Structures are given as structure tokens and as C-alpha cells.
């Protein structure tokens, strides 16, 4: 623990501040933790998440890497196999593709292929998502490209308190974790964060708002819009339950099924493309487990099936799901 780390109470911070303070405290707490990536050193990463870390922890622990994503992840895998707790940063999720082999072919399979002789306790952090005028190559959602992979844990918390608890859990996790941070929530989302060290169990969704009429499962930036939409509908007497998935793999069956069995209606909302997205897996699970508990077809509200959102504002807005569209979907499902 750092001397400055308060043990009790809460403090209000944004998502980006939650990432920053959690990383800072992890570095202060455990010498095995180190951060590596492009521009994480004296620049403090492009979002200033590691600003000041280089001065405080030195170049041995805050490592500026060459501009080469496969080696950022690959070298971190080697460090993890050797007992360190590297936190590798991919500057933008869009640039993770060169490291795909290292994440899917190597990190996720290290324990399995060696039958436990070697493990890979590694965290890969990356900002994802759109709505920030990031255009084609600074806006993607990547979760569906990775969630097919056994051995890989994928987290996508959306509030500062969840970010802290789940990032701590990721660092503690003895296996590789892909930790997704929605860029648009970095500064737009604020919340109370408990002081002191805590973790949130991986694989547990969180009911962010309880309701009777419709269950909504979402995560990331969309989760906050879904909460707004649900709150708007309160005035109309429509009661929506909003579940924050938080953990994409493993996923929380119990919380989703309990909610669906109560409301008998399910809407899944995610920014990632609809086809083959996380929503497809949730729909299939609910259809397998609770089809006869449903009073309406499962609905998905997702990013359209185009390669990316455009830079031009109308093209970005056309891609992003509006809160109005969410209100409409929830209302019509409630009436079904």
C-alpha cells in the first residue's frame, strides 16, 4: 500500500481516473507488476493514464516498447511465464490485430498446452469503442473476435468502482485477461469508488437497476445509455431491469436467467456488430435454458454490420445506438 492510499470512505472519480489510480496502487503494492506499451513512459500514455508513473517507478517498471504489438504481448507473456505480473497496453483496440496470434494462439493456451507446467498471468489493457470521432481505426469493438477463445478472460466494466475492482481482480488472475475500457466513458462517466484495496469476482454481472417488465443486458458505454433510457421509461410506468454484464467471458448465466425468468422479456444491447456478437451467445443461452419462460422474442440492438463507423458525424451517429432507439426498443418490448 502507498502511504497516500486511503483505506476507508469513497472518492468520486471518472473511469479514466479509476484506471489510473488502480494501476498506480498495483505498482506500489507489488514489485512484480510492471506496465509496458507504446508511449506509456514519459508521455504517460496517449490518454495520460500513466502520467507521472515513469518518474515515480522508473523505466524498469514503466516500459516504453518498440512500436510492435505482437512483441508487446509476446514479451509480456514471457515475463508472465517467468513469474512477473506484466500489464501490457495496446494503445487502441484497433491495433490489437498484429498481436492476435500472441493472445489467442499463445497466451490463452499456455496453461492448457503444457498441462499446467507453465501459466500466463498477464493483463492486456486496451481502450475500445466509438462515439469519440475516432473514425474507422480508432473506434472498434473487439470483444467478439476474442470471446470464442477458451483460456482467455475478457472484462469490460463500465463504472469507476467496477473498473477498480475488476482491474485488481485481473491483475490477481493467474491466467491472461483482456481488459477493455470504453473510450467514451473515460471522462464522461463519473462515480463513487470505495477507497482501499478490493476486488470484484470475475464472471459476475451486476444488476444496475431492478425492474419488472423487461430485462436489458448491456455493457460499456451502451450500459449508461440503457440506464438513462430505463429511467426515462419509469415516468411511463415501464419498469426495466438493467444488467451490466461486466465480465464477457466467463459470463454470468445465473443473473441473466433469474432476471429473464422474472421479466419474461430480454433485450440485449451492444455496440459491437450484431452478427456473431456477444448478443448471439446470450440469446442462444437463454433460448436453450429459458425459452418457455419468455413472453416475447429475444431482441438485440447492436452496431450495424458494417466494418466500422465513419469519421463524418452523421456516419458515426448512424452507427452508434441512440438512447432514443433504446427507449423505443424497451417500450415496444414491454408492450409486446
Amino acid at each position, binding site marked *: 500500500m502507498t502511504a497516500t492510499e486511503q483505506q476507508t470512505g469513497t472518492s468520486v472519480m471518472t473511469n479514466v481516473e479509476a484506471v489510473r489510480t488502480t494501476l498506480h496502487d498495483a505498482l506500489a503494492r507489488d514489485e512484480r507488476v510492471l506496465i509496458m506499451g507504446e508511449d506509456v513512459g514519459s508521455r504517460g500514455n496517449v490518454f495520460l493514464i500513466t502520467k507521472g508513473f515513469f518518474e515515480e517507478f522508473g523505466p524498469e517498471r514503466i516500459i516504453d516498447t518498440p512500436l510492435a504489438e505482437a512483441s508487446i504481448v509476446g514479451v509480456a507473456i*514471457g515475463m508472465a511465464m517467468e513469474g512477473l505480473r506484466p500489464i501490457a497496453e495496446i494503445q487502441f483496440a484497433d491495433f490489437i490485430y498484429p498481436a492476435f496470434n500472441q493472445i489467442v494462439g499463445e497466451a490463452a493456451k499456455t496453461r492448457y498446452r503444457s498441462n499446467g507446467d507453465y501459466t500466463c498471468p498477464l493483463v492486456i489493457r486496451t481502450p475500445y469503442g466509438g462515439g469519440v470521432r475516432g473514425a474507422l481505426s480508432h473506434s472498434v469493438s473487439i470483444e467478439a473476435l476474442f470471446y470464442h477463445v477458451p483460456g482467455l478472460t475478457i472484462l469490460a466494466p463500465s463504472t469507476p468502482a467496477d473498473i477498480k475492482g475488476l482491474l485488481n481482480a485481473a491483475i490477481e488472475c493467474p491466467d491472461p485477461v483482456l481488459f477493455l475500457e470504453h473510450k467514451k466513458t473515460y471522462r464522461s462517466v463519473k462515480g463513487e469508488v470505495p477507497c482501499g484495496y478490493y476486488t470484484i469476482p470475475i464472471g459476475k454481472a451486476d444488476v444496475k437497476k431492478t425492474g419488472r417488465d423487461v430485462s436489458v443486458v448491456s455493457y460499456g458505454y451502451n450500459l449508461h445509455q440503457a440506464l438513462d433510457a430505463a429511467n426515462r421509461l419509469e415516468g411511463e410506468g415501464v419498469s426495466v431491469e438493467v444488467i451490466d454484464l461486466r465480465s464477457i467471458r466467463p459470463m454470468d448465466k445465473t443473473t441473466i436467467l433469474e432476471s429473464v425468468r422474472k421479466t419474461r422479456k430480454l433485450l440485449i444491447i451492444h455496440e459491437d456488430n450484431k452478427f456473431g456478437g456477444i448478443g448471439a451467445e446470450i440469446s442462444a443461452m437463454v433460448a436453450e435454458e429459458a425459452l418457455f419462460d419468455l413472453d416475447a422474442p429475444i431482441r438485440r440492438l447492436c452496431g450495424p454490420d458494417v466494418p466500422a463507423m465513419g469519421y463524418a458525424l452523421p456516419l458515426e451517429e448512424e452507427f452508434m445506438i441512440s438512447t432514443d432507439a433504446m427507449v423505443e426498443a424497451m417500450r415496444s418490448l414491454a408492450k409486446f
Partner: protein
Amino acid sequence: MAKTTTARGPELERAGLSDEQLTAILRNMLLQRQLDNRGFQLNRQGKIPFALGSEGHEAVQSGAAMAFRRGRDVLVPYYRDLGLALGVGMSPFEILSSLFARQTDRNGGRQFPNHYTNHELGVASISSIIAGHCTHATGIAAAFRYRKESGRAVLCPTGEGATSQGEWHEAVNYASVHTLPIVFLVENNQWAISTPQTMQMRVANVADKAAGYGIPGTVCDGTDPVATYRAVHAAMERARSGGGPSIVEAKCYRFLSHSTDDDDRTYRDRHQVEEQRKHDPVPRFEERLIAAGIIDAAAAKKLRNDVLRETNEATDAAEAQPYPAPDTLYTNVVAGDYRPWQE
């Protein structure tokens, strides 16, 4: 430019190796040859589905293994490194357990044979993805540096084909920029399955590329274990003492097909193979040790008999082992109990 070291000539260049060490190298080469033969035999007998050979690589690997400090260094091998695996302490029983895919295989029968791993001995787990292990090797070297464990180095071998992969370049570049204790050993057998070196690169030596990374590159005679030992030893010592990474290229030749699934007659002139066989490193080294008076012919024969007996015993012992239980398919996905859906 790459420097060339050779240790040929009438006199045996001992390179600081004792008679015992030289004999140990020969023994390792003989054992490697025997186990290679066994793998191909077992495949032809229909007892195992697949094997990879390392014939022609004995000198590179048994020499390099002598430069490895057990308990300190880490080897991140590739699938053709049987002689290195044996040389750093893995047993024929482990090797054969993997050929037979028995439960005693370190990998639990999950990978192809020849995917060596042994955490206690410092042999890091690898996948089949060519050059995928190179950045891991660099990361392990980075961990040594981070913990200020001087006197430790990583040995990361590949074939020359692997050096066409971006991952190899990224690994070498990263290690160079961060002055990490690692040796990239290239076992250049001139073929990547059916692709010759000339279709892999436009330079004569992989080691020539070292200049592009600002690190030393050395070429050595990979058919002479003493030459390989000297080159790898110097590079490992340099790495251990903070001098950073280097590339050592050992020129050798692959005598067998790429694997039991490959037929090299479809792409390789028999004449070339026969010519190369004349320089077979195993009998040549044995003759050299005899000529230098380090062992006599009877002792050499005894060594050959010993490794054959050892191989036979390990074969029987491994074959007698049970297969991994079917339900082990579900273990070691992640720590503890694993379900994609948390219930």
C-alpha cells in the same frame, strides 16, 4: 558482417572443454540419433501417429546444450530441439511419453511430440506456431534483467525459415533495444519443409541481419559440436554479463524429411542428401574423439550400446503407460474449475 568460427583441422580444438564434457557431448549426440530413429520406426510400425526428426542437428544442439547452465538459464526450444532438450536434462522417458502421447508426457498428451517443456529444468512451454516463442524468450530475458538476476541468459533457437516471421524480428529488435540477456540461435538446415533458404531471404547468412539490430551475429559450423559450443558459449557469456543479445547461426543440414508426414523426395535431390550425409556430424565427432585419444573404439561402442539400451528401456516404459484419462480434456483451461458460463 558475420564472423565465422570453425573448429576443424587435424587437432581437436577443445575450446576449454574437458574430456568428460567432450564425451558427454558425443553421448548426447548418440542418444539424440537413437531417439530420432526410434520415433520414425514407431511411426512406421503404426504405433505412433507422428514424429519429427533432428538428424543432422546433433552437433548444433549437443554443443549448444553444453553452453547452457542448468538451474540458471532458460531454454525456449523449437520442435527440432531434441538434442537440446536431452542436453539440458530431459529424459528419454519424457520424450517417448510424448511420442506415445501417454499421461506421463509433460503436456498431458495435448500437443504434437517434440513440444518440449519442463519448468523445473528451465525448458519453457512452446506451441507449434513458428517463431511464436521468440518474443516469450525475450520476455523471460526481460524478467531476468528486471529482477537483476545477472548470470542468467535465455537460449532461443529457431530454424532459418522462422527468421522470416515478423515475430522473430520483433523479438530480436526488442531484446536489442533493451539490451536483454538472450541468444537467438538459428539452426540453419537450409530447408523449411520444402522451401529452400534462397526463397526465404536474399542474404547468405541469417547472422548478417544482426547488423540491422546493432547486435553481433556469428556463423559457426553446425556440423561440429565444438564450434557450436564455442559460438553459443561466447554469446551466452556475453548475455550473462550484461552485453546484450546476439544471433548465432549454425549451418547444418536436415537429413530426414521434415516429419513423418513429409516426403522430401518430392522437393529434394537425393544426390544433395547423400552428399550431406558424408559429413554426418555423429560418426565424424566420434572418430575425432577417438583420433584425439579422448575415448577409444571400445568405449565408443559401449556408449552406443548404452544409449540403445536406454532408448529401448524408455520405449518399453513409456509404451506401458496409460493414455491420459478422457476427462483431462477439461482441465487446465484456466486455474481451477472453468466454465465459459458462470453458474
